[in-house]
């Protein structure tokens, strides 16, 4: 089964806001992917109608038509953690690659510019949380320069951009993101806080990252350069990702002596592909998913296993 030209067939599972935004991103910049199918479970769903209007094949039979088409090699799951547990098993058995946008975490956590290369042979990868995609790269950028005993992130998102899944599982955001700061960010201890802001007009996604370093003396220049390089690396696939101000260095008196604290103030504006620009939190998830899909597609084409 050879790919059509130099493309790999991909499908999106889930016709909600996230699935729709991802669809627009792939259509706008397909790279080495061809969006073969978007499926949901609700025949009357707006998302399916929208996809059909754009000439995309759709189905309301969930995962079934995806499993039925052996040419679909990569599947983006934008359903729910609950559904993904079942999908993960079916996709693995069918030999498809699953890119999981839900909090199910059946496969390893990935952050494209940090650890995707390590997991390029996995059959299932997970995108952590929106706050994780935004903040973990910058914690990693510091920890590759100097040890980070403690990292803390505060994500403030517009109320309108937080769907029922996030609201009913807010603890999972906190646990998963904190874990990601440790496992991928390289912090010995991670802490995550999420705040919903109902302002009208809605606020852009804002993240603050604080890291506490071992010493009072640190190589500030090396830290700044590493962080700036990482911001550029993320901007390559999330154009609206930017530092709001220069890095702030402060000396803090801690019980165990003087420590350097670095504050990084980050704003994420969405690309507005389908979801509004304020929802940078959703944009960074779909943009990361597209990036992961593209890297997997290139790998499949290179290996000729497609």
């Amino acid at each position, binding site marked *: 089964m050879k790919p059509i030209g130099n493309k790999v067939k991909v499908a999106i599972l889930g016709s909600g806001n996230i699935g729709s935004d991802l669809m627009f991103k792939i259509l706008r910049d397909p790279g080495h992917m061809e969006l073969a199918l978007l499926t949901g479970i609700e025949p009357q769903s707006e998302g399916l109608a929208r996809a059909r209007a754009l000439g995309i094949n759709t189905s309301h039979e969930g995962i079934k038509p995806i499993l039925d088409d052996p040419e679909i090699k990569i599947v983006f799951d934008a359903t729910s953690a609950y559904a993904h547990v079942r999908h993960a098993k079916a996709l693995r058995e069918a030999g498809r690659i699953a890119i999981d946008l839900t909090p199910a975490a059946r496969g390893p956590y990935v952050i494209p510019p940090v650890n995707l290369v390590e997991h390029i042979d996995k059959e299932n990868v997970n995108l952590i949380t929106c706050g994780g995609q935004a903040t973990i790269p910058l914690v990693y950028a510091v920890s590759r320069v100097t040890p980070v005993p403690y990292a*803390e992130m*505060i994500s*403030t998102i517009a*109320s309108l951009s937080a769907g*029922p899944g996030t*609201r*009913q*599982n*807010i*603890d999972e*955001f*906190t*646990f998963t993101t904190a874990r990601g700061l440790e496992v991928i960010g390289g912090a010995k201890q991670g*802490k995550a*806080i*999420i*705040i*919903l*802001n*109902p*302002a009208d007009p809605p*606020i852009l996604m*804002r993240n*603050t990252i*604080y890291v*506490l370093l071992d010493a009072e003396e640190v190589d500030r220049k090396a830290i700044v350069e590493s962080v700036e390089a990482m911001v550029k690396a993320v901007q390559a696939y999330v154009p609206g990702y930017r530092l*709001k*101000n220069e890095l*702030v260095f402060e000396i*803090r008196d*801690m019980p165990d002596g003087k420590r350097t*604290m670095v*504050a990084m*103030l980050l704003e994420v504006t969405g690309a507005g592909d389908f979801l509004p620009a304020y929802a940078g939190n959703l944009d960074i998830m779909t943009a990361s998913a597209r990036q992961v899909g593209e890297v997997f597609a290139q790998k499949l084409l290179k290996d000729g296993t497609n």
Partner: protein
Amino acid sequence: MKAPRLTDTTLRDGSHAMKHQFTLEQVRDVAQALDKAGVQVIEVTHGDGLAGSSIQYGFSRTNELDLIEAARKAVSKAKIAALLLPGIGTRKELKEAFDRGIQVVRIATQCTEADVSQQHFGMAKEMGLEAVGFSMMSHMRPPEFLAEQALLMESYGADCVYIVDSAGALLPDGAASRVRALKQALKIQVGFHAHNNLGVAIGNTLAAVEAGADQTDGCLRGLGAGAGNAATELIVATLDRLGYEHEWDVFGLLDAAEFVVAPFMPFQPIPDRDSIAIGYAGVYSTFLLHAKRLGKQYNVDPLDILVELGRRKAMAGQEDWILDVALDLAKQQKG
């Protein structure tokens, strides 16, 4: 008339004014004095709730779970409560606090976001805790809106929902109308939590009680965020003079305020220039000390920082925006 149930939150809201430096001894002494004087509930937690100890809000000197346990051991009748803000604390810390002796959990959300609290109410009720909803920044929305949000908390199992004037921005009419709207809509109890930024914490509390509040909050000496809270000793003295039936020891609470709390207070919270600005601009009371510190650091007027935060519609817990604003204003000043 029966007086409302009184929750003293010196050991939680007061944690802000104390920069989260409470010691075991202070907690024991305060809890004992409150218990002896008949205060029904004593809240003990980091100022920003369970797991609030952080760079964002300030690290606790003593682990809050140790403080909770010390308070529980110091009292004979009073119930011990903890505050939990979903998004900061989780069910993990709630379970730990339960294991250390809390009998009441107060679950706080922005007044527009009650639906983030469902899993926490669920767990609290499963563990047999009394669960109180805390609708923060209540000045930002009208009474009918707040009642709808409170109904969500009621449906999740809340035993009471509080109108929380986190910014100390309400005036007596606004406090009373909000309590009244909840009393009409809910089957469960209704509470009121005041801040004194506009100098009307006691007036608002009395108006809320008159409007039917079943529970109310105070702090000894008003020790709390911003200009502090309604003083516990003032609540009992005024309700006593109004003829409400109660079992509090009025003079015992005057003594507790004067001889137990006042000696360790770093300062007496009052409606001064910056605190009034908080009430006037309608921002979170705990921003006060952070705005003062960063104002000094970046040579910016804290009042300008607070007013700008109000303009940007910062909500409860958004202390990191204070740094944003301080940096932006410092840049503007440089031109």
